[in-house]
């Protein structure tokens, strides 16, 4: 039998506001437990929420970027359920009137492009965190995250493989970081998703029974969790059994999904309009302002890199694909004229280093200024490209500036013809046999002479000058 997979994703994007959705407590990551908590976040008796303007603006920016309908009147609802890290016993969310309705996102998976439709995106508050393993017999509650603004983006069930789901999340990551809607840091939970997975016979119209895999927070785990779930469901269906609709968790240590115990009771969330918040209206003026301040998106950047900076389509696409890389490039470009050398370095040496270290460029010791200086020193022939690579290694380790390294290690290129000529004269004098052989027609020996010069100068001689003068002398 031939099976078909249907996947829909609910993505939770933590909006990068300074303060929470309904309070003015900080949202900074990594604060000591329960210190980014005020009266409202603690859900104390008598407190009331008020809404954060910036969270709306970011949500609207996202909606505009996916060509969605923006609802300028926002109504919040309460979703009622009990959980230890949900302080009020309800989550404030948007049920009937999401701020963003419709729209679509383009993805690229396995060389083919596809458009995934978005059902809706709504604002809601995040819950706190429960720590289950650190204290004997207890779960510990940290409310720092409680109230952090989330944009929950619901896709249509239009993906048909784990790879497409990953491509969707990558496109989402690129978009939210580009829009400065979120820092997109998946390890810190700023971008995470729930995957709804179901299987049906190829050609069937009806969807199969789905399971929901909760809270997956890396591209790798999305692929693994969905692939596990697909296999599991197909196995069930092939043995003639039925898939049970349930919530599951992905356990990365065992590479499997398992039913989530704490969700075993069917819930009835009893949604109703939040009576503590009146409708929130976004004015036409505010919409216009968001439009006016709209950031440059990847496609626009690609086009600009090609037309204004003369980059190849390939280079432009690679640099524009990551917001952090493009930001770095945009800053560096202001400090150097050799754009193509800069882009070669970014795509070559720098990307290789970042890949090896598994970090983003803004997490490295490299700054756009220093990299531009390095490019300039190669460009103005202060150093050779080869020396440039060793300087780069040093920059990555110490964060020192190229000029400091050149100075302290005496790496400045020797381009003075007189100095190079003196060294070449010495080499010719010291190697009469090789000179004779070369003149006798053994042209391969040319490399030997260059090597000798480089050896004496520790690689600092300007290779072009060496070639030119050597050829002249060995005539």
């Amino acid at each position, binding site marked *: 039998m031939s099976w078909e997979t249907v996947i829909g994703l609910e993505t939770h994007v933590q909006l990068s506001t300074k*303060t929470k959705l309904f309070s003015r407590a900080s949202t900074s990551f990594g604060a000591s437990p329960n210190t980014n*908590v005020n009266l409202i976040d603690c859900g104390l008796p008598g407190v009331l929420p008020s*809404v954060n303007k910036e969270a709306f603006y970011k949500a609207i920016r996202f909606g505009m970027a996916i060509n969605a309908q923006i609802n300028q009147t926002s109504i919040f609802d309460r979703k009622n359920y009990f959980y230890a890290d949900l302080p009020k016993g309800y989550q404030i969310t948007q049920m009937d009137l999401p701020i963003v309705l419709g729209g679509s996102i383009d993805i690229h998976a396995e060389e083919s492009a596809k458009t995934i439709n978005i059902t809706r995106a709504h604002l809601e508050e995040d819950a706190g965190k429960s720590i289950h393993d650190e204290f004997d017999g207890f779960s510990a509650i940290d409310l720092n995250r409680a109230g952090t603004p989330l944009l929950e983006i619901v896709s249509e069930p239009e993906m048909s493989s784990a790879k497409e789901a990953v491509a969707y999340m990558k496109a989402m990551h690129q978009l939210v970081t580009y829009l400065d809607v979120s820092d997109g840091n998946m390890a810190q939970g700023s971008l995470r998703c729930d995957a709804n997975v179901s299987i049906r016979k190829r050609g069937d119209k009806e969807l199969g029974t789905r399971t929901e895999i909760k809270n997956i927070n890396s591209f790798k785990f999305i692929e693994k969790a969905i692939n596990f779930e697909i296999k599991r469901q197909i196995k069930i269906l092939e043995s003639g059994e039925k898939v049970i609709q349930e919530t599951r968790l992905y356990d990365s240590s065992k590479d499997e999904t398992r039913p989530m115990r704490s969700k075993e009771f069917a819930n009835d969330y009893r949604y109703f*309009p939040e009576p503590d918040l009146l409708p929130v209206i976004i004015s036409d003026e505010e919409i216009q302002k968001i439009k006016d301040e709209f950031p440059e998106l990847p496609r626009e950047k690609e086009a600009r890199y090609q037309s204004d900076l003369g980059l190849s389509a390939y280079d432009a696409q690679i640099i524009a694909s990551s917001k952090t890389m493009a930001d770095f490039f945009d800053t560096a470009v202001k400090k150097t004229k050799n754009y193509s050398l800069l882009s070669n370095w970014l795509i070559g040496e720098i990307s290789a280093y970042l890949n090896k270290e598994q970090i983003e460029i803004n997490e490295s010791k490299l700054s756009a200024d220093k990299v531009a200086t390095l490019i300039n020193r190669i460009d103005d022939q202060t150093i050779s490209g080869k020396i440039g690579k060793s300087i780069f290694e040093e920059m990555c380790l110490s964060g020192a500036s190229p000029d400091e390294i050149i100075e302290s290690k005496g790496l400045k290129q020797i381009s003075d013809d007189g100095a190079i000529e003196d060294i070449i004269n010495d080499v010719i004098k010291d190697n009469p046999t090789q000179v004779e052989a070369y003149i006798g027609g053994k042209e391969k020996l040319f490399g030997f002479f260059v090597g000798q010069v480089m050896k004496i100068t520790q690689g600092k001689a300007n290779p072009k000058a060496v070639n030119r003068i050597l050829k002249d002398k060995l005539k």
Partner: protein
Amino acid sequence: MDQETVRTICYLARLEIDEEKSEKIQNDLETIIELIGSLQNIDTSDTEPLFSPLEMTAFKHEDIENSDNRKDKFLENAAASNEDYFLVPRVVE
């Protein structure tokens, strides 16, 4: 409203009712539901709900931090806490 419904409602509200009171509660709920049910006689087909007596809109606050860390005060009010956290019986996810 049957016993089963009462049990479900109690579970959703995380309340339990003493055995000897359960019949009384069930009767009370039925009486109140009957009272509320009388609204069905009113024609509201063209009427929007009025969720708040104020027909105005909320103001929005600026994204400027104004937090005072009162962790100790908050944890003090909890029945079980350690120096950093609120504590509850261990949850298995």
